[in-house]
C-alpha cells in the first residue's frame, strides 16, 4: 500500500467502557477502502507517548476509577500530547478522554481532577443527575447530522479557539444549556457521544483519516480516498 497511518489507542486498556474499540475498527475498515494501511497500538500507564510515532490518537471513555488513575498518569504525557495537537495531529476524544484534554473535571466524589489543558474547556458536575439518552446534532460547518447516545454527569463548557462538534437538535450535549455538543479544535474532535461515534457516524471517521493523510502526505493526490462512500446508521 502506498500510504500508512499509525493510531495511538491512548489508555485503550482502561478507557474502553462503551464500545470505544469500535472507533479503531471503523478507522481500519475505512482506511482499507481508501487503500491505506492502518495500524494501532495501545499506549497506557507508565508508557511514553512519542508524537512522532503516531498520526492519529483515539482516546476513549472509561469508568470513574480508571479515569482518576489516568488523570495522574497523563500529566507525564501532557507536553507530548499538546505538541502533537498544536502540530495538527488528529485526535478523537470521547467522554473521559474529552474531559482530560481540557483543564479539569470534577470526579464522582466531588474532587477536582486535572486534565492536561491542551484544549481550553473545563468540566463541572451536575448534582445527582446524569444526561442519558439519544442525541442528534448538526455540524454547522458541513451540515452533517450525527447521532449517538450520551450518558454523562459532567457538564463541559468550551473555551477559546474551540467550536462545538455540532449544535444539539435532540438531547443535552455538553452542558444542557448552550446547545453545543463536543468540541473541534484544529484536527481534534471531542464528543460525549458514547463509544462508537465513528461507527454510527463514519463521516467523522473519514474526516479524521483525510486530515491525517493530508498532514502526513501533503503532496499526495487523495481524490480516490475522498470518494469512499460513507453514511450514518441513523
Amino acid at each position: 500500500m502506498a500510504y500508512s497511518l499509525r493510531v495511538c489507542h491512548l489508555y485503550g486498556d482502561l478507557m474502553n467502557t462503551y464500545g470505544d474499540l469500535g472507533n479503531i475498527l471503523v478507522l481500519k475498515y475505512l482506511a482499507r477502502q481508501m487503500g491505506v494501511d492502518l495500524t494501532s497500538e495501545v499506549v497506557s500507564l507508565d508508557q511514553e507517548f512519542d508524537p512522532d510515532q503516531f498520526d492519529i490518537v483515539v482516546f476513549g471513555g472509561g469508568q470513574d476509577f480508571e479515569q482518576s488513575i489516568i488523570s495522574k498518569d497523563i500529566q507525564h504525557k501532557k507536553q507530548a500530547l499538546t505538541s502533537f495537537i498544536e502540530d495538527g495531529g488528529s485526535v478523537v476524544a470521547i467522554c473521559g478522554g474529552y474531559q482530560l484534554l481540557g483543564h479539569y473535571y470534577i470526579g464522582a466524589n466531588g474532587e477536582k481532577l486535572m486534565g492536561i489543558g491542551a484544549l481550553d474547556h473545563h468540566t463541572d458536575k451536575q448534582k445527582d443527575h446524569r444526561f442519558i439518552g439519544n442525541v442528534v446534532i448538526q455540524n454547522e460547518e458541513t451540515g452533517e447530522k450525527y447521532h449517538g447516545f450520551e450518558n454523562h454527569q459532567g457538564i463541559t463548557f468550551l473555551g477559546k479557539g474551540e467550536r462545538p462538534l455540532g449544535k444539539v437538535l435532540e438531547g443535552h450535549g455538553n452542558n444542557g444549556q448552550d446547545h453545543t455538543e463536543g468540541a473541534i479544535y484544529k484536527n481534534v474532535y471531542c464528543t460525549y457521544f458514547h463509544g462508537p461515534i465513528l461507527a454510527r457516524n463514519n463521516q467523522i471517521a473519514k474526516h479524521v483519516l483525510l486530515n491525517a493523510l493530508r498532514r502526513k502526505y501533503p503532496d499526495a493526490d487523495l481524490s480516490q480516498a475522498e470518494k469512499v462512500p460513507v453514511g450514518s446508521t441513523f
Partner: protein
Amino acid sequence: MSLKSSIATAAGKSSYWFLHTFFKGGSSLPGKITKKLDPDILSTLARNYDVIVITGTNGKTLTTALTVQVLKEKYDHILTNPTGSNMEQGIITTFLHASSTKGKRPLAILEVDEANVIKVTQYIKPKAFVFTNIFRDQMDRYGEIYTTYQKILNGVALAPNATIIANGDAPIFHSKQLPNPIIYYGFDNQPDQDIKATPNTDGVLCPQCQHILHYHFISYSNLGKYFCPNCGYERPKLNFALNKITALSPKSSSFEIDGEPIKIEIGGVYNIYNALAAYTVGRFMGVSPAQAKQAFEKDKRIFGRQEEINVDGKLVTLILVKNPVGLNQVIDMISTDKDPFTFIGLLNANYADGIDTSWIWDGDFERLPKMNIKQFITGGQRYKDITYRLQVAGVDPDKHLVEPDLDKVVAMIPKAPTKKVYILATYTAMLSLRKTFAAKGFIKGGMG
C-alpha cells in the same frame, strides 16, 4: 406470626392465587401487596429457612438452578425463585407461594439482583452468598463495575457472618477486606504464562497499586489466574478448582473438578463456571463430589434455556445476548460447532434490551468470518447498527441478508442454506421471536 404479618400473608397469597389462576402470572404483584401491608414481611416469611443468595452480572439463573439440583441430592425441602423474580417483591412472592414445612428447616436458594441484595439482608441473614462475576451490563441502568460490587457489599455488610462463595478468578472479588469467611472457586487448567488481557477488557487495574494486572492464564474476559508484577498482589488460593476441560461443543462440556470427571449438557465456558459455583455450594453444604457429579448428569432439562427449536426441519438455537462479555462467550460457544450453520443477529433497543447499543462494538464479531457460516441475517429495530457491525467485522456481503422485520426473519429460516441456525437476540427481540414461534406452533410459548 404477628396479626399484621398474618393479614399481609393472607392478602399476598390470595392475590397470588387470583393472578395465577386467571392471568397465569403473578410474580411480583402479590409481593408488592404483602410488603405494603407489612414492610417487614420477609423476616417473618423466611424465618425458618437457611438462605443462600446468588448474585452477580452473568450466570445467576443457571447457577441457582444447578445449585438447587446439587443440593437436592442431600436436602428434601428447597425453595427457589423462578427466573426474573430476583427483585425484592418477586422474592416475597416466592416465599408466599411456598408450601408449609412445619418442623423442618428448609433451604431457600435465591437468585438476587445485585442492587436488591440489601433489600433481602435487611430482613434475612443468609447462610451464604455466591458471587458469580461482575461485568459491565446495560450501563445505562447499572453504572460501573465498582459501583455494582459496592451495592452488593452494602447488602453483605448486614450479614457479616455469612460465608461468601466467590469466583476467585475475578480480581474484583479479592479487592476489599471483609469480615465474612470466604471460599474461592476458580480455574486451574492451564500452564502458567505471563500475559495481559486484550485492550478491550474491563476491570484490569490492580486493586492495591493501580497498575495493569497480568495473568498466568485467562479463561475469558478478565477472569483467570491474575497477578500484579508491580506489587505482587495475586489471585487467592482456590478452595475448589476446575483442573481440566476435556471437550467443548455448543451443546455439552466435559471437564474435571478436583479430579472428578463431569459432563454437563450445555455449551460455553461460562456455564462451566456456573457448574463450578454450584459444585462449591454443594460441597460447602456437605454434598459429596460423587453426589454433585450425579446431580449434573441426572436431569438435562435443567439446561433448558438454550433449547433447540425445530422450525420446518431447521434446528434453531435461540440465545439471549445482553452485554459484551456474555456475547463473546456465545460467539466462543458457536465456534465449537463442527457443522456449517446460519447466523442471525437481532438488535432491539427498548428499555429491557438496554437503550444504548454501543456494546455491540465490544463483541468479537471479527471471529465470525473464520467460522463455517453459510449465511448471515441481521435485523431488529437497530438493524443498521448490527448490519454495519458485521460489515466492519469482514462478513462477506454476498452471504449477508438484512431484514428489519422480525416476523419476516422467522419466515426466512426455512430457506436457510444450512440445517443448523443460531439466533443471537436481545431481550425484546427474543420475546417477539418466541411469540411468533409459539403462534406457529414451533414452541409452547412463554419464556421457557
